[in-house]
């Protein structure tokens, strides 16, 4: 361990005084957009449609918009706090400065598990897609495992080699996948002289009534799950106070558009009973449009979306793990930065076998539920976080890169929507919810009574902020 100490005058590890190695600061706002949208866009290609199965076509649209409000609040709140806390670890570092160490530890774990599980789910889907393509060319019984492993190993290698190449890759394939959705919408709804969309005939009443709308919120999150991951790159952007709010808010707008278009095209092409259980709904939609070009476009789009998502997940999970290691919340061995590539290489390596275990061994719906729940716990933390932030450091005490409007209304709306979503998860996966919370309770006790003794107290508060009000 180095002898730098953040409270020391000569060797505080900051800037010129003692730091030799940090993460590379090379990213711009477009990369942030690519990272945020890249993680999420796969949700448009698959997964969101389970909301249709949960409550019917209209319920899925309502869930899409309610979840859209939820995530707009998340994005605004996150943008404000992150534009002042520019450090790897994102919400983890925010929690550490604003709520307290145990909350931070929990938030760090939400992030790592949400992203690692999502990465595993993406790898499973990637293997399934390759299998589908092989099946279409007449090859039966393909071994999916080498493709699952290859996707994880390749992306880990990319992440290991440097963040700029990683996120540029994400940016390009995400932009492609997004354009594919736009192309599908434009050609089916606008350009085809004989539009295949049949909304009038295909739409039905709510099959489960309003309870179905609540239940649909569970998968309504899929339209946007992961956009908050933009904060993880805070330490690697050239100008965090500008790039993070811009990239995140542009991301949420992109997703709102993509989600609504996806819904519109899909429910106009498929009966809701089919759509609610489809594996790759956008690809099916392209198939039903009757255009070969669209089929290829959306097929490639689906594949790119899974890769972009897994790529962003590796990036974000490793940043959170790295930040916790650096603070001794986890063994400090993880806090190392690669001297040449400037990446948290040990965290990246460590998370590879874990992702492989989940991708090869665990059932997909369990993995997805664990990921959604970890995300949901994180969103519930955010309103508390921002309310405490505004109370401890009112607007006139520290400079913010972005101030979210109408405080505390977004925080209250977010909290209410989280409550609704907890209820929706409870309707289908109540026992998983309790199992997961038991896990977090046990881990919290373990951290408070054992692990926290290895953490230096004042050194973890690294922001040059004044003393918080009320302390």
């Amino acid at each position, binding site marked *: 361990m180095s002898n730098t100490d953040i*409270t020391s005058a000569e060797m505080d590890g900051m800037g010129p005084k003692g730091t030799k190695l940090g993460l590379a600061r090379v990213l711009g706002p477009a990369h942030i957009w690519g990272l945020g949208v890249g993680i999420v866009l796969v949700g448009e290609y698959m997964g969101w449609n389970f909301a249709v*199965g*949960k409550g019917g076509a209209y319920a899925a649209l309502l869930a899409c918009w309610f979840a859209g409000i939820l995530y707009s609040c998340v994005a605004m709140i996150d943008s404000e706090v992150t534009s002042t806390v520019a450090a790897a670890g994102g919400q983890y570092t925010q929690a550490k400065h604003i*709520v*307290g*160490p*145990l909350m*931070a530890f929990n938030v760090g774990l939400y992030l790592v*598990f949400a992203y690692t599980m999502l990465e595993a789910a993406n790898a499973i889907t990637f293997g399934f897609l390759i299998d589908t393509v092989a099946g279409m060319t007449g090859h039966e019984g393909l071994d999916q495992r080498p493709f699952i492993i290859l996707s994880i190993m390749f992306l880990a290698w990319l992440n290991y080699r440097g963040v700029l190449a990683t996120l540029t890759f994400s940016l390009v394939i995400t932009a492609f996948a997004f354009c594919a959705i736009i192309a599908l919408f434009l050609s089916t709804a606008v350009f085809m002289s004989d539009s295949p969309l*049949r909304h009038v005939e*295909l739409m039905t009443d709510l*099959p*489960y009534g309003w*309870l179905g709308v609540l*239940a649909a919120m569970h998968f309504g999150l899929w339209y946007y799950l992961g956009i908050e991951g933009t904060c993880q790159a805070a330490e690697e952007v050239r100008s965090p106070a500008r790039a993070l709010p811009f990239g995140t808010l542009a991301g949420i707008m992109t997703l709102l558009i993509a989600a609504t278009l996806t819904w519109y095209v899909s429910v106009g*092409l*498929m*009966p809701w*009973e*089919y759509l609610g*259980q489809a594996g790759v709904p956008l690809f099916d939609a392209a198939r*039903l449009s009757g255009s070969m070009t669209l089929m290829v476009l959306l097929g490639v789009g689906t594949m790119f979306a899974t890769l972009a998502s897994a790529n962003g997940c590796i990036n974000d999970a490793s940043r959170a793990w790295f930040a916790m290691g650096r603070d001794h919340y*986890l*063994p400090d061995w993880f806090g190392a930065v690669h001297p040449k590539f400037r990446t948290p290489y040990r965290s990246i390596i460590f998370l590879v076998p*874990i992702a492989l*275990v989940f991708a090869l061994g*665990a059932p997909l719906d*369990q*993995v997805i*539920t*664990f990921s959604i729940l970890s995300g949901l716990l994180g969103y*519930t933390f955010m309103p508390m976080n921002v309310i405490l932030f505004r109370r401890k450091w009112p607007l006139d005490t520290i400079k913010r890169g972005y101030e979210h409007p109408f405080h505390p209304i977004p925080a209250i709306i977010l909290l209410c929507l989280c409550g609704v979503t907890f209820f929706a998860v*409870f*309707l*289908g*996966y*109540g*026992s*998983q*919810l*309790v*199992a997961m*919370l*038991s*896990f977090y*309770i046990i*881990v*919290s*006790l*373990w951290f*408070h009574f054992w692990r*926290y*003794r*290895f953490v*230096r*107290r*004042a050194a973890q*508060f690294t922001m040059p902020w004044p*003393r918080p009000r009320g*302390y």
Partner: protein
Amino acid sequence: MANYIPPVQSKISQIIDVIVLLVLAVGALYVPLFLNLVGSAQTSNVPDNPTWEGLGQNPTMVEKWNELGYATAADAAELITARFDYSFSILNLLVMIVVVVGYYAIVLRFSGKEYREVISEKFGDK
């Protein structure tokens, strides 16, 4: 207030810490499976000799089903009649609310205690 100096943790102890975390995480994932508490599955109620009309499908829907590869009503009947069961007991709901609220209460309480320590060490006692 004197600064808190954390003890140095041995390599073995660090490795054990990581293993404990992983075992707990994998446990949370698999315990519901072992207890057979899998998430709510849909149940289908397929009538005998299903027809498109009997399943409430209009001609456009039938056309789409055909394009999707379901040639007869019998092929699609299982998908069409699949429904979730949303009944739940108030007791279970209360248990969930208590667990969620209790969890956040514990975390916020302990965090608050640790946070005061951090602030007083960082900024000095008032």
